[in-house]
């Protein structure tokens, strides 16, 4: 009975150490050497243009009186 508790404690301690070791190995965060460049502004602008393109075409086609030539 006492022996069992001792084994249980050891196992728990060992697994705890193991987890800590794994965590230590996994959560190694290093700053990237070069800054990550995400140029979203331009893309969003282009997406807006693409998205509105059909609306603009329809507007002109359906309301020719607003766009006299």
């Amino acid at each position, binding site marked *: 009975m006492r022996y069992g508790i001792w084994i249980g404690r050891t196992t728990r301690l060992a697994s705890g150490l193991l987890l800590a070791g794994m965590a230590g190995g996994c959560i190694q965060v290093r700053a990237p050497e070069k800054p990550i460049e995400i140029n979203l502004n331009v893309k969003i*602008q*282009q997406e*807006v*243009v*693409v*998205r*509105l*393109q059909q*609306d*603009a*075409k329809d*507007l*002109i086609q359906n*309301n020719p*009186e*607003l*766009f*006299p*030539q």
Partner: protein
Amino acid sequence: MTSRISRTAIAAVLLGLGALGAAPAMAQDAVISAAKAAGTVGEQADGYLGIKGTVSGDVRSAVDALNIKRRAAYTDLAAKRNVTVQDMAAVTGCQTLAGRVSQGQIYRIGSGEWQTKGAGPIALPDYCAAATR
């Protein structure tokens, strides 16, 4: 009997109103088309009509009225698409400059000088590239 007469009367009045409403709109477009041909009114990249130099009061009021209507249409669409009125107007401007300016008519990009369209296509602003593809 009376209701039939009054219905006819209402229809006549409505028809009359319709004709009155349609007439100035037709005249307005004709004024603008003439001014475009004369090179005093042109399309702008911002989606609105612009005036070059000095024009008659008729032309000015026709341009103002049309631009107000355009802005109303841009505002509606912009609200639907959750974009700014300016963006909606500018994308429409890409379309008008790309397809609705005839050779010899004037146009303007940004706050630049008025230019006259030649035989080739208009050099559009960079952001238009996606719109005319």
